């Protein structure tokens, strides 16, 4: 068991700067998810930690060993690849045993290790099969079992669920979570799926255009995004950002005045508010502002409303039995403790005091 630490990693591919000085620390036994859109550098960072790519600048530590210059085989890691990379010419048993065979462990230890990993992944009845005889989900299980069998200090996963269909993905997600809580292996997990990140992670590292944008617990990342990118990327529908005029230490939404946490020198300020944090009323309420309903989308657990407020659009969710039609005017009351204030010039959150 060991933590991972990377320090000011820089990497370019030709003219493309993939990573611009990323530092990150994964604690021992922690499950960290690297989340970001494609091209943000998350897979490159994972591959640098694995030793499959080398950074131009920066260092990588696993536990207290500086592994920056070490080849992958000397790093005591295991990895689950996006397309599984289960060896087609080996049986499931030999696939799971691969890492142990490379370590030249004794026959009993090998058998026991394979059996333990196969049992954890519920594939103990498939050991004699070849990968060509397995379904995608079963191959995925073999790939994870192969990684668990070596009892690595650190487990790296590169979008391991992205090739599975939606239903299977949901099932495997819950299973992975159970498994990794049980095995307590330090895990770094790459995904572009924000729901996957929220559901699995102890902490989420949000990346964009080669930078680490925010690194915090899932609910913190969700409720207190560091900037407009994080607020927009995480959550479906994304966070609303309303551009509001500033009057003294208050921001004004028509008749409603909201206290700003600190003094703001600019003329305008961005209010970030999640669709579920806007309470909708058909009658005027204190602490609310009016908006006109443009679209009503019934989504099952709730209705998704698109409203117009001046020239800006705003999304809000209301209970499924809420009686509302397009064209109607609703009064929206923002939850006062769920507001996020951001600087409109750079999209960064304004620090609370």
């Amino acid at each position, binding site marked *: 068991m060991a933590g991972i630490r990377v320090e000011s990693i820089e990497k370019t591919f030709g003219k493309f700067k993939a990573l611009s000085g990323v530092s990150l620390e994964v604690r021992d036994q922690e499950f960290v998810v690297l989340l970001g859109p494609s091209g943000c550098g998350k897979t490159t960072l994972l591959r640098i930690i694995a030793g*499959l790519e080398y950074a131009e600048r920066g260092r990588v530590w696993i536990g207290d060993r500086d592994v920056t210059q070490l080849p992958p085989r000397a790093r005591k*890691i295991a990895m689950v690849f996006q*397309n599984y990379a289960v*060896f087609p010419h080996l049986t499931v048993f030999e696939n799971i045993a691969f890492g142990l065979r490379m370590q030249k462990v004794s026959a009993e230890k090998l058998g026991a290790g394979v059996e333990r990993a196969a049992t954890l992944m519920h594939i103990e009845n498939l050991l004699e099969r*070849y*990968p*060509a005889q397995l379904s995608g989900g079963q191959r995925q299980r073999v790939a994870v079992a192969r990684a668990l069998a*070596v009892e690595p200090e650190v487990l790296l996963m590169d979008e391991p669920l992205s090739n599975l269909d939606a239903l299977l993905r949901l099932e495997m997600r819950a299973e992975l979570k159970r498994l990794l809580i049980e095995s307590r292996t330090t895990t770094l997990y790459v995904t572009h799926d924000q729901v996957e990140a929220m559901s699995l992670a102890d902490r989420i590292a949000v990346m964009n255009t080669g930078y680490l944008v925010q690194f915090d617990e899932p609910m913190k990342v969700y409720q207190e995004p560091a900037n407009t990118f994080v607020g927009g990327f995480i959550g479906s529908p994304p966070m609303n950002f309303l551009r509001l005029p500033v009057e003294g230490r208050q921001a004004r939404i028509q008749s409603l005045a909201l206290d700003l946490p600190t003094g703001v020198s600019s003329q305008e300020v961005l209010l970030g508010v999640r669709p579920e944090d806007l309470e909708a009323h058909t009658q005027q309420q204190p602490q609310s502002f009016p908006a006109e309903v443009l679209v009503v989308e019934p989504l099952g657990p709730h209705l998704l409303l698109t409203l117009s407020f001046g020239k800006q659009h705003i999304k809000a969710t209301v209970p499924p039995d809420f009686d509302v039609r397009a064209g109607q005017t609703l009064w929206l009351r923002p939850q006062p403790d769920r507001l996020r204030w951001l600087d409109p010039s750079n999209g960064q959150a304004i620090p609370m005091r």
Partner: protein
Amino acid sequence: MRSERYIPYVLILPSVLFLLLLFAWPLVEALLLSVRGSGGGWTLENFQRMAADLYFRDALKYTLLLTVVIVPLQVVMALGMALLLGSISKGRDLFLYVWTIPLGISDLAAGIVWLAIFTERGYLNSFLQGIGVIQQPQLWLSYETPMMIFVAVVAAEVWRATAIVFVILVAGLQLIPKEYSEAAEVFGATPWQRFRKVTLPLLMPSLQVALILRTILALEVFAVVVVLGGRNLPVLAGEAYFWYNTYQNPGVAAAYAVIILGISVVATLLYLRLLRSRQDGVA
């Protein structure tokens, strides 16, 4: 829409007819020729005459020896070259093209190139005289030095025909996703283990194709041998040629052709059996 089902068959028909006419039919004719006597009845006379001939045992011996020496040498070299090419990024195409130049040279021309090196007033003797190793030009390719002829033929064949093995193996290596090698690397395999446990088994189908192709062609070796050694290094295909042309005996020539065919078939079946890739073996 029903008529569209026949289109593929119509489109392959010309090539099938072509092959039947120019390969299958002559093949059957050659088989018949080899087992028909001068009177017209069935006989093994041609095979008996072939086996009794002075050159037959040497021809069989040298053909098999050449195959056994040349083919493994070519596969090992081509595999090394293909793997080297895989780790080059800049100038990869240049190496690829230079290494495949011999593909464009006919075997007769290749034989003449190597004759120009090994002949009495050739490049090798000029060079050795130039640096003072020998005083007189040496006769490398005479009936007294079959070993030297053998070496010259091996050199010419390796120079000429390694490229085809190389091309097949390069294509095969490109078909193997790099994740397999990366996975092996992450799970602790050294470069040699990666080659032995992952690359080589996954390359088996391509190796099989290359071995079958090269072995069949090696068993038919002719032009290079004739140019470098004449009949001083007899081979099966050469004997077929001499019996047909010089002795005007198509029956015995056909018997030689049938022998070559028989050995080729046996070799191919052996490769298919021994190198069966394991993942289809159980499917």
